[in-house]
């Protein structure tokens, strides 16, 4: 029987989650805004050194104080946001742009293409993600572009796997059979039927991968493999701050907080989107099966 699902307390909780999603979204938007603003304006020139009052505590002129070369920490954090978001956005875009079509192709065409994509995935997952990134940036040389490539590459199998998994379960659904009976080809079905129905899952995965990419970029920069000076990145700020840990811990704390806030915002946004975009359709076995 098509049982009308009785509303249970679980669905009632939906609204509460939405609030944290909005908070997450707001935080993420704020960081994005800061990054954009830093393109045109920062309180001080992030590279301008003022060795006279280096390692100064927060003052009127320098709300977050200065670093070991007297540079304004707030300005550097703002510019660091730009690098972090740019690298992560492009890397995730690269991962999704290649991974999703691969996943869709694998689910549409059974047989050797599916096998090939899956083997590629197994291979990619054999290497710990960061190791691949370190290897690639080392081979191609450090720098923001190579960091994008490195992080992007290990995003491809993630999106391929999510897209393939979600698509596979749809291919047996009756509305896809009906589309085949309506003379629609596999590619057209993949784009017009499958993609919109797995968009929810992909967007949710996207926000998670975006957050992971920010952590990965920070890690690579910390190791000196990310963007190189004079570009500023949160990861390298942390690296430099570590040597002054005894003198001025503030320098080590602030960039880390920036990373945590950004990633936290994205994860909360992802959770909120998951419930709204990808509600678990209550497809309890509807056929009476008598």
């Amino acid at each position, binding site marked *: *029987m*098509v049982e009308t699902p009785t509303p249970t307390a679980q669905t009632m909780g939906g609204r509460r989650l939405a609030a944290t999603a909005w908070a997450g979204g707001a935080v993420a938007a704020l960081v994005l805004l800061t990054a954009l603003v830093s393109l045109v304006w920062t309180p001080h020139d992030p590279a301008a050194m003022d060795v006279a009052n280096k390692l100064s505590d927060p003052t009127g002129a320098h709300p977050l104080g200065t670093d070991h070369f007297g540079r304004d920490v707030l300005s550097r954090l703002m510019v660091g946001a730009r690098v972090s978001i740019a690298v992560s956005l492009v890397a995730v875009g690269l991962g999704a742009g290649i991974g999703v079509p691969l996943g869709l192709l694998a689910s549409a065409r059974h047989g050797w293409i599916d096998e090939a994509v899956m083997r590629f995935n197994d291979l990619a997952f054999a290497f710990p993600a960061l190791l691949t990134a370190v290897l690639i940036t080392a081979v191609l040389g450090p720098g923001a572009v190579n960091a994008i490539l490195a992080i992007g590459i290990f995003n491809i199998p993630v999106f391929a796997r999510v897209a393939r998994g979600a698509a596979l379960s749809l291919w047996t659904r*009756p*509305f896809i059979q009906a589309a085949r009976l309506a003379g*629609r080809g596999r590619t057209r079905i993949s784009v017009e039927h499958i993609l919109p*129905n797995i968009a929810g899952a992909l967007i949710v995965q996207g926000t998670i991968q975006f957050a992971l990419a920010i952590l990965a970029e920070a890690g690579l920069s910390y190791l000196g493999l990310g963007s190189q000076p004079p570009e500023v990145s949160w990861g390298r700020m942390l690296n430099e701050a570590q040597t002054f840990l005894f003198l001025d811990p503030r320098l080590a704390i602030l960039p880390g907080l920036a990373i945590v806030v950004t990633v936290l915002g994205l994860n909360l946004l992802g959770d909120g989107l998951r419930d709204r975009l990808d509600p678990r*359709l209550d*497809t309890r076995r*509807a*056929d009476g099966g008598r």
Partner: protein
Amino acid sequence: MTDSRPVLEARGVSRAYPLPRPHPLAPRPVRHAVADISLTLARGESLGIVGESGCGKSTLARLLTALEPPDAGTVLIAGRDPNALDKAALRRLRRSVQMVFQDPMGSLDPRWPVWRIVAEPLVGLAPEVARADRRARVVEALAAVGLGEETLTRYPHQFSGGQRQRIAIARALVTDPDIVVADEPVSALDVSVQAQVLNLFLELRRRRGLALLFISHDLDVVRHVTERIMVMDRGRVVEAGPTAEVLARPAHPHTAALLAAVPRLDAAWTGRERRAAPGAVTEHSPSRHR
């Protein structure tokens, strides 16, 4: 073109599915879903296919609608073998056969509005129909199933199970097919809604001279809606003939057992002796529960 040739014909079609190997060296076991079945469906005629789950009736439906090629034998739609045609010819042939599925929740793409769902067969099979005419054909098809123009812009989740099944029927009618294959179209519906949809099938046959292939496990539903019947058990046809006659005087033990097993409403006042179903339908090897 009044044409005495059957609109749908199957000549000795068979289809088997490979099963997982019990152990690596064993030959791959095979399950014969459909074994050497022949049938003809004349223009405007209705044929019921009855059998328990796992008897192969859904597989037969997939063969007759060319969703899958048979391993042996041939299928003829309007006298032509769909599996021997090129893409364009197959698309033209598909206009004359469309399908309605069991699961109202899965029959319609949740992300598509009703007008686009019902129009899809026209877009795929009759591209020459102009966009303006297409809308008219959709409205006409929806009217034929008792739904007004206000449903055009709504989405599937805004309808009840019965209404969704009507939309699926409208989609099947939009290319004005000769045959509609209905695979358990009312099994997932409640009794009162089931009656509404069955009445719709009866009306459509009368008004549009539609040939109907009606697949079900419910003998009473098939008795009510079809003129001829075919009883299937484990991939084979065990009995066929005029519905009223076969169900009144079953010749094959399997048909008799099915009839005896159906619980009867008048058991309430014709005394309680619970007629145990004769042992004819033995508990064969673990049946493929759908």
